[in-house]
């Protein structure tokens, strides 16, 4: 089965549409959404509608920190993120807000764990930026592969049978076999706000039969997404950063 993973959509309609269309063309049969549907971007309402439709069609979902902040606190967020969440609250209707409130922090699916951030204590929203956090995350689950987002930069970690960690920056489009002899943590790049210097939207495809993970990059209409952010009066940096992917 081919599963498409999307993380950190951040209300970027143009990026999400491009990734969904790409995944459909690749023959993806199942959708997993790894949180942070809203925040930063200018189309939370459209994105939430699409997310709820996908959930109704059987997609697996978890909660992200920006999603949690809509109905909760923005403590610990930087000023731009806070401004965007405050604006998002005014944009979302009750059904979308209730939907976000009901999302789980993590979800297990066969031998896979889905979670937005580091898995040992998901509500702490710890970033997996190195082998230390990756090891903590992997020690918290028996799953063969953990999929997470939150960092906005793609990375792939593995833990060997002899408890050694490896880290790797994936190349877009190159399938990596997730060998059965070790356990893996796949950090996805962001759909809606990439930060690895490449402005193309990021998602991933996992082929459960072959055990192969492919990180994918999809160019999308950045101009429109950025123009929408400016039009809504959101912080200009949130628009500008989309062009450079940082």
């Amino acid at each position, binding site marked *: 089965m081919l599963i498409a993973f999307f993380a950190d959509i951040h209300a970027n309609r143009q990026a999400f549409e491009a990734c969904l269309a790409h995944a459909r063309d690749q023959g993806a049969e199942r959708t997993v959404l790894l949180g942070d549907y809203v925040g930063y971007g200018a189309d939370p309402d459209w994105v939430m509608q699409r997310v709820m439709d996908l959930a109704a069609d059987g997609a697996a979902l978890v909660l992200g920190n920006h999603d949690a902040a809509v109905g909760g606190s923005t403590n610990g967020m930087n000023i731009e993120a806070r401004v965007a969440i405050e604006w998002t609250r005014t944009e979302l209707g009750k059904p979308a807000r209730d939907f976000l409130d009901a999302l789980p922090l993590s979800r297990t699916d066969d031998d896979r764990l889905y979670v937005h951030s580091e898995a040992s204590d998901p509500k702490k929203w710890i970033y997996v930026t190195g082998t230390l956090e990756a090891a903590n995350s992997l020690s918290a689950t028996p799953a063969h592969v953990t999929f997470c987002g939150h960092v906005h930069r793609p990375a792939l970690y593995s833990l060997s049978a*002899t408890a*050694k960690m490896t*880290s790797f920056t994936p190349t877009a489009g190159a399938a*990596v076999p997730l*060998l*059965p*002899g*070790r356990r893996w943590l796949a950090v996805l790049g962001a759909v809606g706000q990439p930060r690895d210097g490449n402005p193309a939207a990021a998602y991933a495809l996992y082929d459960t039969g072959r055990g192969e993970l492919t990180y994918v990059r999809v160019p999308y209409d950045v101009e429109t997404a950025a123009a929408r952010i400016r039009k809504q009066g959101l912080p200009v940096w949130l628009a500008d950063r989309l062009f450079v992917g940082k």
Partner: protein
Amino acid sequence: MVKPLHETGVEIDGFRLEAMVHRGGMAMLWRVSKPGLEGPMLMKVPRIGEGADPAAIVGFEMEQMILPKLNGPHVPKFIAAGDFARQPYLVMEAIDSPSLLKRLPQLPLPYDEVARLGVRIAEALDDLHRQHVVHLDVKPSNILFRSGGEAVLIDFGLSHHDRLPDLMQEEFRVPFGTAPYMSPEQLRGIRNEPRSDLFALGVLLYFFSTGVRPFGESETMRGMRRRLWRDPMPPRALRPEYPPWLQEIVLRCLEVEAGRRHPTAAQLAFDLSHPGEVKLTSRSEKRERDSFTTVMRRRFNTDLTAQRRTPVTEQLTSAPIVAVAVDVGAEAAPVNAALLDVTARMLATLPDARLACLNVLKSSAIAIDSTLDKEGHNKQIDRLVRLKDWAAPLKLDERRLTAHVLEGTDPAAAILDFVTANRVDHVLIGARRDSFRRRVLGSVSAKVATEAACSVTIVRAPRVPLGDA
């Protein structure tokens, strides 16, 4: 449940163990058969379990990831892999030839035979590097030959793949490899340098042509590290009749700094196939090792420790072999000027590229041509001189420039043969705007562009010659 495979007749996933062909420290090799699958097959079973070398497991994992990604005649074809949790194994095509290890009792081999072996191994390495892989364990026992002559590289347990996690790098902070063949940068833990394989091939060429290993067989870290500053004895010190061109090539492969070796395996193959075209430097004449001060300078040069950041394939794309087909006839002057301009612009961005200037001497299909024209000048020499004259304004280092006069009845076919045999990456060729000859005889450039496996740029003289407007 991990159960060791060790009995003839045992079947796993339909593969029947026929005979054990090798039992090493890291793995066992079995000849296997399976109904419906043709041809000889080998199953590699890692030695895992109590007391197994962790490197054996990681090496097997690396090979399990890399081998299925590889294609072409220079690697054994991947057939199947077994699940690690149940029974790890790899099934691949068996190459029915002994490895180069079998030749050791015959060393030293004749120089031309060493060069021929070197060309074939370098071609295999070029193919591997283009597939994003650095082998990192090039040595006689890992090199076999198909019946058609192509070298086949085996054992990717220590290899690095640019697009896959490097489990070796992360797991073991000490270098892995085979002591006599390991490059200086490998000893420093750098695993993504394709020219490490050229160093190992240089060790092999040195060994096969002199009968002596250039850095001995020391396996201690201290002994191996000496190669970071101490150069080997020049082959000509061991064998006075050793050809200078071969010493030039071998010592260039063995340069401590990767940047001083051939930029790519394809360029090394090019040199080995054209001994007469090898630019001889002071290396070729050396009969003594480097002086004490040079060795000391190297010893305290810290630049060598810098980690490479460029991916494997980037090194290849920055160092292509470019062939330019030049028509030396007088009427070709305008297009030749344009060709020179395009060539100069292209080479300006590719400091490691090398340029092969080609001209075809048309031989008659019927009469046996005299190689002497009526003025008594040798046509070949005349064409070579004119090719070099055409290239002179490029002011290229001689090491980057070669001139070749090809012979054939069909110029396009002669160019295409050269392009294939020498792994040319890009052909530049001039075309006339409109000519009676082209309409009648067909266009050489069109045929080259249609049939070449590489990129072809067709250059025409400007519509209005510059300066005349």
